[in-house]
């Protein structure tokens, strides 16, 4: 019998992509994929127009009035690196949450090792089911210094379904003149984000996860009036005789050719979310994980981390079995999950997962309750 693949690793990248995304990527490559911003011929302008439409869609989706502040880059990691290294200066102090991904921790640690900045980690109390925004904001307020320039946090963790109160944290940052940077790697496409009302100064987003676009379609959105240093320099098609990057956003930050097919696909992904409805997508995914959680809780020796937070990610271990071993065994039966530390040493430490990490399940709108049942049965049967 042929093994059926059940993909439950959407926190890493969404799969499958909607048909309209795949079709538009192909149509772009077949029909209009000139180099955007490099010429005024028909294909270059067609590519540029498609990219502009995607900027407008991204800005609108995330509550920004400025499509020109939507900057495309490879992925969320590149976006975060640009923001962190572009804005921070010698002597600055930074606050990051205790659930941050290495995409935040590593660039910060690098700047610390170079003697440029210092940082503190603020607690978000994910293990406590009664935690609240006020408690988190109080903890942040205690750590703010005179030289605190930036606060970075993941809106939703990539290892559990814990969500941070962006609006309250944003208000606090704005009142203290601190740049508020949000890593929306897990929440984009799952939870509403409105940059302007949440006081977000820089939003870092993957195109290939919840927004259902192709890999390589990441971006960040800068708040109004913000300008940062560039991470990379090169051709932008604009003011070619000048030896420095132009001032205009987004061209200032987008050195080199943009991946037009990926961005064209991202536009379709965003439009398909709008068509289906983000609330509907989110409810379905949360429902699948809640359903799975109930099944897993019936199995002896299963430990679920942060069981009170119901969302798109479920983290668990089976007693006596290293997570990588369980993940590999599940793969043999067609279940794609991610085991280990998920590039989030800080978060695993906060959740007190054991040596070897844990198994992460992240379903999508396209999974079914029957698949979750089959998954739970397989977890139970694997010895």
């Amino acid at each position: 019998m042929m093994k059926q693949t059940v993909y439950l690793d959407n926190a890493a990248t969404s799969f499958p992509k909607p048909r309209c995304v795949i079709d538009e990527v192909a149509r772009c490559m077949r029909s209009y994929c000139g180099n955007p911003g490099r010429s005024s011929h028909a294909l270059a302008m067609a590519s540029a127009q498609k990219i502009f439409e995607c900027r407008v869609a991204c800005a609108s989706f995330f509550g920004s009035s400025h499509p020109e502040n939507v900057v495309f880059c490879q992925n969320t990691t590149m976006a975060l690196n640009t923001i962190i290294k572009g804005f921070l200066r010698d002597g600055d102090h930074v606050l990051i949450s205790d659930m941050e991904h290495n995409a935040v921790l590593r660039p910060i640690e690098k700047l610390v090792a170079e003697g440029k900045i210092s940082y503190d980690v603020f607690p978000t109390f994910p293990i406590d089911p009664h935690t609240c925004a006020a408690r988190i904001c109080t903890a942040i307020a205690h750590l703010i210094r005179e030289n605190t320039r930036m606060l970075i946090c993941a809106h939703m963790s990539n290892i559990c379904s814990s969500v941070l109160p962006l609006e309250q944290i944003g208000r606090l940052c704005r009142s203290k003149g601190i740049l508020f940077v949000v890593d929306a790697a897990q929440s984009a496409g799952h939870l509403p984000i409105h940059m302007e009302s949440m006081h977000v100064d820089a939003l870092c987003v993957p195109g290939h996860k919840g927004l259902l676009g192709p890999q390589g379609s990441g971006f960040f959105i800068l708040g109004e009036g913000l300008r940062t240093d560039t991470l990379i320099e090169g051709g932008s098609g604009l003011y070619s005789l000048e030896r420095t990057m132009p001032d205009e956003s987004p061209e200032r930050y987008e050195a080199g050719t943009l991946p037009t097919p990926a961005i064209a696909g991202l536009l379709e992904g965003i439009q398909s979310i709008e068509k289906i409805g983000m609330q509907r997508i989110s409810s379905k995914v949360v429902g699948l994980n809640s359903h799975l959680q109930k099944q897993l809780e019936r199995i002896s020796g299963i430990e679920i981390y942060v069981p009170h937070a119901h969302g798109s990610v479920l983290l668990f271990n089976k007693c006596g079995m290293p997570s990588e071993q369980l993940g590999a065994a599940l793969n043999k039966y067609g279940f794609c999950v991610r085991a280990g530390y998920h590039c989030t040493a800080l978060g695993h430490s906060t959740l007190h997962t054991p040596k070897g990490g844990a198994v992460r399940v992240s379903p999508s709108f396209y999974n079914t309750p029957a698949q979750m049942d089959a998954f739970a049965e397989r977890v139970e049967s694997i010895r």
Partner: protein
Amino acid sequence: MREMQFMGACQSGIGGLTQAMQAQKTLADKGISSQVVRREPTESRGCAYAIQYPCAQEAHVREILHKARIRMRE
């Protein structure tokens, strides 16, 4: 992009392509047709983008873009 020809066309420099497209969209939202064009390289800076629109609409165009905080370079 569809080619458009205007009788008595005026051009205003914008700078970046994205800003020029934003200008075009802003004008379209107000019912004014315009075209994004790539400008001849200047000796000091190189290529940039402009929008082209009917000269009869110039005052209106300037007012709309000023309100939208899109900078025109001349």
